[in-house]
């Protein structure tokens, strides 16, 4: 084996070992890497009630009730719902049927008291008229008003 070949195998082996190590670490960390939990996770994963968490999902259609600067709404992942209360300025994209990520704590009554609400948008980009046309023709697959 020439020195060049030896170096080649050494680099390939090193990269494979490093890649495997990274993959193992990432799998082990797993849940720690997520930015938010879904309302369903909140039930199934026994997250302690004192812990500040981020909850992500869609704003349930017809659930937004404004009360001065305070907004009540429901975050849903379509399998579980979470009542949420937030006081403050909402991002422009906040609307019913839109994705949100809220940070806060669940209070004694099971209501999620959010201290920060971020809007999340999907990966679809299109002009307004195309979106309208799609909705009209029934081919809409975006963040549809779900019940």
């Amino acid at each position: 084996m020439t020195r060049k070949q030896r170096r080649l195998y050494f680099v390939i082996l090193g990269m494979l070992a490093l890649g495997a190590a990274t993959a193992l670490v990432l799998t082990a960390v797993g849940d720690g890497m997520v930015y938010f939990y879904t309302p369903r996770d909140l039930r199934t994963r026994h997250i302690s009630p004192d812990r500040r968490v981020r909850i992500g999902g869609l704003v349930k259609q017809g659930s937004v009730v404004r009360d001065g600067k305070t907004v009540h709404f429901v975050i849903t992942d379509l399998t579980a719902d979470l009542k949420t209360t937030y006081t403050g300025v909402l991002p422009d994209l906040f609307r019913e049927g839109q994705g949100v990520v809220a940070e806060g704590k669940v209070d004694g009554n099971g209501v999620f008291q959010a201290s920060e609400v971020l809007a999340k948008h999907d990966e679809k980009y299109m002009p307004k008229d195309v979106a309208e046309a799609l909705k009209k023709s029934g081919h809409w697959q975006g963040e549809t008003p779900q019940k």
Partner: protein
Amino acid sequence: MHRFANPARFLRLASAILPWSSALSALLIAAGLYFALFHSPADYQQGETVRIMYVHVPSAWLAMACYSTMALSSAVALIWKHPLADLVAKAASPIGAAFTFLCLVSGSLWGRPMWGTWWAWDARLTSMLILFFLYLGHMALINAFDDPSRGAKAAAILALAGFVNIPIIKFSVDWWNTLHQPASVSKFGMPSIDPAMLLPLLLMALGFTCFFVTVLLIRVRTEIIASKLRAIRMTQIHAVPVAVPVAE
């Protein structure tokens, strides 16, 4: 591979490509900006803010492409001891750092109105920030030794080790819940972006690529000249005691 080992051949090739690549990048970026700013529709949800995408996404792509170039040339330098490969890696890292910085800043400016925050510690944003630090570390390491070849070797190992971050950046939005949305263009099936918006995006991406090639060639050329200069100076220094015998 070894046909390009020759710096003289590389210099000839670079001067042949440079006028074309610089003209092409100016043309493509100008056309891309025209379409991006005046001749593309506003988004159905994000309105006019979507135009930040035409700078943000190409700079993110180029930041990763530049790192891949750097890692590849580092591997070539380590395995085949190719002197030109070291110079390519050295020339690439500041360019990549600039693209990463542009991506982070434009993303921040986009995140504020759309998400409601300048920054979020989600997997995509964090891995992109790590990429920026990898570039800075590479630049620092390559210049940290008196002997340039030792610096190049240490930096090459860093570049290779840091390459594991590239798939993490790419797939972070698929593997974990993130605030950042998943890929729109580079995915299986049709891109989920309207053709009228895809056109300026691709024009800008091509323009950025040509710009990257142009700047990389210029920087490698400069590095070749600088190392030649260093070699001349070294021979002069070592030649002095021989040329001028010390008179007792």
